[in-house]
């Protein structure tokens, strides 16, 4: 059998060999070697100047001749040459300064110095490695050690402010919950707006598997990955860099590289971090008496009779109009304070890394326990990582990356929903007692009692995740390598809750839900890389293919009618039911690219990728994504003046197309589903309207960039301008006419543009031996606009709107001009001038997207000390303060909801100015309403707030013990750090946190603040020892 295969292979090989060889030879500029006359033999080794580590793959060339060689994996090389000693060697190695050495005899040891100008650092861009100076694309690298020390559970949060153009917003202050991430604006209305995350060559899933409704609070799947093992993060921004990810790259790509160890003796690293978090700057509520007076006044203003007012002597109660007692009899009870705590964080991590000449490894583990400042919410993570690389021979390298983690969480419903914690703690009126005279918890309206909720909530989840990759890299020829990479991302998300009979959701006899969701993504990538260099030019060519298959399924079981609250398993439930889900998708891709550089001055590259997705309609299944870029290293031109004040100047330009098919599976098909039962008889219903015309969403992007290094390499900067235009906008819930019997369809319904500019500046202000001071400043601006849309679409509770000519997620409200000093009625702008305030008068008055944002980072080192100060800022971003909409409702919600202190400043008599409107919810003569009762949907711009802020994100002070002391006690390094996070926030926003975002599951609705847990203030101590 093997012989037959062998023979077949031989045949195929012979058939193709000629063509392949022709290709390789025609591209090769390497001269054929002629057996030389031997005049000298030189043995040598190339090492790092500082670490003395041998450097493999360094190029050694004899000056004046073409003869060159490369070091082996022990850093050794040998020259057998016709040249006689002495002669000059030129040693080049990426990431190091080029060195000239005169060889006087054998053997020789050559030390290379690292090039810290960083221009020659190698960046991984898609499927190739490119010197930074040759980049045609906009990208940025953040090293693991530069990540924030603030207690964020995911890598992405630790990047906030570091990468211009990358907008990162913590949706809430609960650890392990979702983060809003947008790179260069929002392209799409789908959930598919997140950048693509690639961890050690594995494209990972970043959409979460959560099935339980937690009032808009979502867990963050990126929290499954430890933040400790990170070596570096590369953010690919423009289309030329991301196009090679084709349909996955439209929203940018974030490449995460974890530690892999190096060819050196094993190092053991142990870290511990502990600290506390607390919350401040919460809502200020009225007293019981203030509440009563406001409600009484609103009642009468609304046409109620004074003798029926809600707060009057209890004995006057009637069937229709209950009486709560006189205002002055009301007590004030605090519930809000009950839900907060000082949360204690602990993190332990242990890793061992090292290697030998042929192998390197990294083994790491982490335990993190991070309770939320909100009681009843906890996040913890156990994570393990094993990375191995081994050189089997000079030609074959194999390796593996593995991450296994489990992240148990305790959760509670916050945000929206009657049974949520904030309804109980914040929205319940302060005049209502918490316990009755018998000591029983009192519940009110549709809200739970806050203590009952804290004591009885039993909602848990656990994400079990395994991300694995194996690869083999074969050097077929010195310049031709083949890499085969096989990956899987396996995730089980288990959730359960039990609502006891003490909770409203547990009526009448307990209620429980358990959801297990499982998703596996398998992918295989094959890549052929060809590199060839001559004195003046380098060419890199690659072709490859990739196949990815994702299967997702789950089971939900629910139970009710439990025998008692002690029996919480659904097995004990009197009534049980279950349902299942199943879905799959696949993506097949072919791609290739060329990178050509000439004289270290000009670089041109181009890539092309074709993707076929099972999600797209049959007739439009394949999408084609080309990209090209150009880089001109002006400073290497002969005409560029050599000066210490301007060391380096580069210009670059790129263009490319990327795609997006991040819609749910099977959206192009007309479908019927079961489960719509009646009287326990199975029912089937049409569940999805067919859209055979469903096609790829495509984004075209231009990028123009300038970067330079100045003032003796102490200042470097980069500016990028980009212009993105997205066509065939995929709307996963495009509304269709009601008469179709369907509510929505997945449809290509519009066009969106994003234009922006990004700037980063690094400055080494001080570089003395003992004292250094480095400043990094970033600023970026993005303008988002819906260019075309078949029809406006409203979202949320109809205060968010997608409309042509405005940014996505714009807030759609009545513009409040003021309050009439005579009547106390609200004055809205009458846009159509018909004298009536109707829906036609609503306007789009802002969005969550900032006009500009950025960060300022200062790093000081003095002897063993280092100090990091990070400030982030954002300007022009708006929030719809929906919490205030409820809490400043003018008493018209009666005894149902609490009232915020700021409500006290309302119109009381003619002549009052700078006040909230008169307390009433009846229709004014012009059709407006001063305040809204629960049933109406008309919104005022007075709840639309400027949420610009400047935030002292974190300060970290570190001290490393001098190495001689450390060695005395047997350690290589000991470092202690103290971190303070979120110490100061300057903002005009009236809510607790200007970074709030509570409806996290829809792109139509970003920037709504409803009962958001604010980000806590944290103080942390860390200790890190290396053996």
């Amino acid at each position: 059998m093997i012989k037959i295969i062998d023979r077949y292979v031989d045949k195929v090989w012979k058939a193709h060999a000629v063509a392949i060889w022709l290709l390789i030879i025609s591209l090769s500029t390497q001269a054929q070697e002629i057996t030389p006359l031997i005049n000298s033999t030189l043995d040598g080794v190339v090492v790092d100047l500082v670490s003395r580590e041998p450097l493999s793959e360094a190029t050694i060339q004899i000056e004046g001749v073409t003869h060159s060689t490369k070091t082996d994996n022990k850093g050794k090389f040998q020259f057998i040459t016709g040249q006689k000693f002495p002669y000059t060697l030129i040693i080049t190695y990426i990431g190091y300064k080029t060195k000239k050495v005169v060889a006087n005899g054998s053997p020789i040891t050559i030390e290379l110095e690292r090039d810290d100008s960083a221009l020659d650092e190698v960046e991984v861009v898609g499927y190739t490695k490119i010197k930074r100076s040759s980049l045609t694309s906009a990208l940025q690298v953040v090293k693991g050690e530069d990540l924030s020390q603030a207690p964020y559970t995911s890598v992405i949060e630790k990047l906030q402010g570091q990468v211009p153009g990358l907008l990162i917003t913590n949706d809430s202050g609960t650890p392990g919950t979702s983060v809003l991430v947008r790179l260069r604006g929002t392209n799409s209305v789908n959930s598919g707006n997140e950048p693509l995350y690639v961890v050690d060559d594995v494209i990972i899933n970043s959409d979460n598997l959560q099935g339980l409704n937690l009032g808009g609070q979502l867990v963050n799947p990126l929290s499954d990955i430890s933040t400790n093992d990170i070596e570096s993060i590369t953010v690919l921004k423009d289309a030329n860099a991301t196009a090679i990810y084709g349909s996955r790259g439209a929203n940018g790509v974030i490449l995460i590289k974890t530690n892999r160890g190096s060819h050196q003796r094993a190092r053991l690293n142990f870290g511990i971090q502990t600290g506390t978090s607390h919350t401040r700057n919460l809502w200020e509520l009225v007293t019981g008496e203030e509440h009563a007076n406001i409600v009484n006044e609103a009642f009468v203003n609304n046409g109620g009779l004074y003798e029926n007012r809600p707060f009057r002597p209890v004995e006057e109660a009637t069937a229709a109009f209950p009486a709560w007692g006189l205002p002055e009899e009301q007590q004030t009870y605090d519930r809000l304070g009950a839900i907060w705590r000082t949360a204690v964080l602990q993190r332990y991590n242990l890793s061992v890394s090292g290697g030998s000449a042929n192998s390197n490894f990294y083994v790491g583990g982490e335990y993190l326990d991070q309770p939320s400042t909100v009681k009843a919410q906890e996040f913890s993570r156990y994570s393990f990582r094993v990375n191995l690389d081994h050189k089997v021979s000079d030609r074959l390298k194999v390796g593996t990356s593995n991450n296994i983690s489990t992240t148990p969480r305790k959760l509670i419903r916050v945000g929206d929903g009657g049974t949520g914690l904030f309804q109980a703690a914040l929205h319940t009126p302060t005049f209502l007692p918490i316990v009755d005279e018998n000591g029983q918890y009192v519940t009110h309206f549709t809200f739970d009692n806050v203590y009952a909720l804290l004591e009885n909530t039993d909602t848990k989840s656990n994400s079990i995740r395994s991300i694995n990759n194996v690869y083999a890299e074969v050097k077929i020829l010195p310049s031709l390598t083949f890499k085969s990479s096989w990956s899987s991302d396996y995730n089980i998300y288990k959730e359960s809750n039990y609502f006891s009979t003490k909770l409203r959701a547990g009526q009448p006899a307990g209620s429980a839900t358990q959801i297990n969701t499982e998703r596996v993504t398998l992918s295989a990538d094959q890549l052929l890389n060809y590199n060839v260099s001559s004195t003046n030019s380098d060419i890199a060519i690659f072709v490859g293919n990739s196949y990815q298959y994702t299967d997702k399924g789950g089971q939900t079981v629910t139970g009710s009618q439990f025998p008692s609250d002690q029996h919480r398993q659904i097995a004990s439930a009197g009534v049980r039911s279950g349902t299942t889900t199943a879905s799959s998708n696949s993506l097949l891709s072919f791609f290739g690219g060329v990178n050509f550089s000439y004289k270290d001055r000009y670089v041109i590259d181009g890539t092309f990728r074709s993707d076929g997705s099972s999600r797209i309609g049959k007739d439009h299944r394949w999408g084609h994504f080309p990209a090209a870029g150009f880089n001109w290293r002006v400073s290497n031109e002969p005409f560029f003046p050599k000066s210490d004040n301007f060391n380096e100047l580069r210009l670059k330009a790129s263009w490319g197309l990327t795609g997006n098919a991040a819609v749910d599976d099977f959206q192009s098909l007309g479908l019927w589903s079961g489960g719509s039962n009646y009287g326990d008889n199975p029912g089937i219903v049409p569940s999805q309207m067919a859209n055979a015309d469903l096609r790829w969403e495509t984004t075209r992007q231009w990028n123009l960039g300038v970067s330079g290094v100045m003032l003796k390499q102490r200042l470097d900067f980069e500016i990028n301008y980009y212009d993105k235009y997205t066509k065939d906008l995929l709307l996963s819930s495009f509304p269709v006419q009601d008469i179709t019997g369907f509510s929505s369809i997945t449809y290509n319904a519009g066009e969106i543009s994003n234009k922006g500019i990004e700037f980063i500046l690094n400055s080494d202000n001080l570089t003395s031996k003992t004292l250094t001071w480095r400043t990094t400043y970033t600023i970026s601006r993005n303008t988002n606009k819906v260019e075309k849309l078949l029809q406006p679409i409203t979202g949320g509770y109809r205060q968010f709107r997608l409309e042509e000519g405005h940014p996505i997620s714009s807030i759609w409200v009545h513009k409040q001009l003021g309050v009439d000093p005579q009547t106390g009625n609200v004055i809205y702008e009458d846009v159509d001038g018909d004298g009536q305030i109707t829906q036609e008068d609503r306007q789009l008055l802002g969005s969550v997207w900032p006009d500009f944002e950025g960060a300022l980072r200062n790093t000081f080192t003095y002897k063993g000390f280092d100090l990091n100060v990070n400030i982030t800022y954002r300007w022009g971003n708006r929030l719809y303060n929906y919490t205030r909409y409820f809490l400043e409702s003018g008493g018209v919600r009666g005894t149902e909801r609490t009232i915020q202190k700021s409500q006290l400043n309302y119109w009381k008599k003619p002549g009052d100015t700078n006040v909230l409107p008169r307390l009433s919810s009846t229709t004014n003569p012009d059709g407006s309403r001063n305040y809204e009762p629960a049933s109406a949907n008309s919104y005022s711009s007075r709840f639309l707030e400027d949420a610009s802020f400047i935030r002292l994100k974190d300060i970290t002070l570190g001290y490393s013990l001098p190495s001689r002391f450390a060695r005395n006690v047997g350690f290589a390094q000991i470092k202690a750090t103290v971190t303070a996070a979120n110490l100061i926030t300057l903002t005009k926003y009236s809510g607790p946190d200007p970074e709030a975002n509570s409806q996290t599951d829809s792109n139509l609705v970003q920037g709504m603040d409803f009962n958001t847990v604010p980000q806590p203030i944290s103080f942390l101590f860390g200790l890190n020892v290396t053996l």
Partner: protein
Amino acid sequence: MKSHLNHYIVLSILLLLITSCTGVLDLEPETSVSDKGVISDKKTSLAALYGIYDNLQSSYTGTLTAFNLASDNVISYTEPTIIVPDRNAEDNGGAPFSTFYVTINRANFIIKRVPDVVDNQFTDAERNEIIGEAYFLRALAYFDLARFYGGVQLVTEPTERIDTQKGIRRSTLAETYAQVLADLDKAEELITNETDRSRATKFAVYGLKARLFLYTEQWEDAEEYASKSIASNAFSLVTPYSSFYTGRLSQESIFEVVYTTVDASTYWRSWLSTEDGGNQTYVPEASLITDLRDPEKGGTRKAVLKESTAQPGLYTVQLYGKKDGTSSLFVLRIAEQYLIRAEARAKKATPDLEGAAGDIRAVQSRAEVSSLFTATPSTTQSDVLLAIENERRLELAFEGHRFTDLVRTGRVADVLGGYNPLLRESYQWVFPIPASSVEKDPGLEQNPGF
């Protein structure tokens, strides 16, 4: 062997590059099936019919809530000052709209496809039954749409593509009622079921026709169709009054939407008091409470109310009060047929006030009302009509009739205008179509005034 390594590698690359894309991208969904051929036999035809009833569970809940709140029978607990709300385009009083078309589309699929199903196990009677019930459910949907909004867009073809229903505009109220009647005629012709009250029966068709004829003021027809159920010994006014909702599918019932413990409703939460685990979202209005508790007016119907122990004076409604979620929604029951006939008899060309009074008394006697309505020679037609109006308010208090009863009898301005002057304006007598629905359909015109 090592020398072959290159060959293997190159081969594998070539194979991967050549790998045809057929197959790997053609995935089929597992939890749903394709639209084509989904209704293929008797079993799937029946399943598609149950799919309509499934939607009726939610759409009828929404219908009841919106109509109840629109009248002076039910108020929102949190807004005690608003007895009768007015509506604007943005706040349409929570009235359902799109869900009716979900029902209609599901019915249209059956009406179009079931006649063509080839299945030799499928008898004509079974086939007709399914199609007939689909007609009935479509009629009910159009009838309630008309009650809410007046004339609406009439759709009689299933939506198979996005452009199937393009360009359909609203019809007049008369055309909409004509569609209801046409569907009911079809249903009457096809349905043979007389016993399963959880589904449309022949009597459900008669009952809905009788109700339709009240709205179209065809009094003789209304009397004739109401009499069909009254005359049948399958139906009776059960005693005590409460037994029709504490039990299930009683003799009282002509058609009720049912739930089971597995397929449960959460409607009880909206009605029961917080001490009973509910949310007391909707509570009865004060004067209704007074009348229901008055032995001369409400009689045993006061059982539908329960007074809170924690909050004396607070009454909640027990009609949908089964906490396991199995309370039915009562679409048609025999008491209403008596009152329909009473009204038809009082209004027909040659009024039969005696007969009308007899029907009113039948309903009152079952409720053990202490003072029964009698017609004396001095009794006028308007006395009888007022008695019917009051009787309907009490007998059918929470079943969504009150608002449109007042609208169709022209009494709405007099009765509800006192609570909210805007209700004197005729544009408020129908609901505004939800703004979001108007927004996405250029053919859908908003009702005037909104």
